[in-house]
């Protein structure tokens, strides 16, 4: 499954400045592993030492926050859009 991953500014040092990159995987966990393979260093920024999503990272598959879905097991259908976004925005 090939998906399009939207990279936040904070991680673009790992993608050569690119805001979007392609990645392979049937689940979000596989997509993140593929990202790490092709853009070394990006994985530990998104996942903690236990391999879980860091608590201040939001990840969306299409329009769905993966915390409302199956987390790293969330399916990533062919052509899906994955967005990685810092969670500290909003409110006051």
């Amino acid at each position, binding site marked *: 499954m090939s998906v399009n991953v*939207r*990279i*936040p*500014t*904070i991680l*673009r040092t790992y993608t050569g400045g690119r*805001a979007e990159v392609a990645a392979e995987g049937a689940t979000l966990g596989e997509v993140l592993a593929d990202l790490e393979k092709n853009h070394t260093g990006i994985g530990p*920024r*998104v996942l903690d030492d236990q391999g879980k999503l*860091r*608590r*201040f*990272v*939001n990840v*969306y598959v299409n*329009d769905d*926050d993966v*915390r*409302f879905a199956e987390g790293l097991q969330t399916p990533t259908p062919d052509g899906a859009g994955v*967005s990685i*976004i*810092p*969670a*500290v*925005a*909003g*409110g*006051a």
Partner: protein
Amino acid sequence: MAVNTVASTTDTTSATSADAPAGSVSLGPAAALSCRECGERSPLGPDFACGVCFGPLEVAYELPTGDAEGLRRRIEAGPASIWRYAPLLPVPEDVAAKPNTNPGFTKLVRADNLARELGVTGELHVKDDSGNPTHSFKDRVVAIAVEAARAFGFTTLSCSSTGNLAGAVGAAAARAGLRSCVFIPHDLEQGKVVMAAVYGGELVGIEGTYDDVNRFCSELIGDPAGEGWGFVNVNLRPYYAEGSKTLAYEICEQLGWRLPDQLVIPIASGSQLTKIDKGLRELIALGLVEDRPYKIFGAQAAGCSPVSQAFKGGHDVVRPVRPDTIAKSLAIGNPADGPYVLDIARRTGGAVEDVTDEQVVDAIKLLARTEGIFAETAGGVTVGVTRKLIESGRLDPALTTVVLNTGDGLKTLDAVAPSSGPTAVIRPTLDAFRDAGLG
């Protein structure tokens, strides 16, 4: 005057918005940005998330210490606005001379009538922030963000908003001579939509919830379309959030430079609560108030209560929810500062509680009929939660308590309109008046 460095060491890794103006800036006592999670430091800039762990960045200061009496006199001689506290804020020294909305120094109302209704025997006060220029506490945070926007060379001021913030940004941008373009959920209360639109900036309704709006803004900031934009609660958030410290400063000064024993604070993202705690701790560290225990209580609406649920469940992380409540200014289902609220409530011996929409409406009316204060739904949440905390014995009625009202009831008329109307409609005659049982 000696200098107290409130955070330490330096590093440069952090999230910077795309193509943002850079360079050395001077924002008063602000020394650096510091990650609240891992402590990583970075220079002052339009950054909001740590490049190491994605944690929230906050402003670290070099605050003036060693002459508490001199600082107190300087504050008391300052303007009747948040700028009296400029020595403790990330703003230039001459901030009060610049065009801005001059928010703050709102009334701290001694609420004896409400106290009697609630069975409070100690002092009960309402910090009534409806008295700000656009009638909510948001003017405080936006005023700080405007100074950061100026410092970083932004020409457009923007935000994601549940309504109050959009109005505050529109007004502040108009006064400062900046362009504004703000984003709101498309289904907000009419009063808030009008208040956001009237200042002449661009107002965009997004088909979705506040969390959807927030996500959109976070993506826009990394896109060329958002270049040169200062999003007050995204890439200017570390500075903007500091504005809420002024609530703590004012409450203590208005109590005669004294800490309250208990505070009841609404929770949306949780930022306000965490910054009030930060402000109280700064006043203690600077010797402006006596160091004694205080308890902080957080208040949510039951229809959007992820922090309350986490507190009651004993969790230290907050599971996002999809909001469904009339308290739309608090309807943030994925609160960025939720984990820190949990830490503070537990550290101070407070709690986080929630009330139903029906209880919110009852509390709005209770505050209005006892103290003549018409609160927006967020104020109904804090008063309702205060009542619930007293009834359950968690808030001590014999102590000094401050309850926050963060906005004006005129913004959320829909909440009380169905149950608030004329006692009678009569012909203009004395007989009709008596017949209606009014004489």
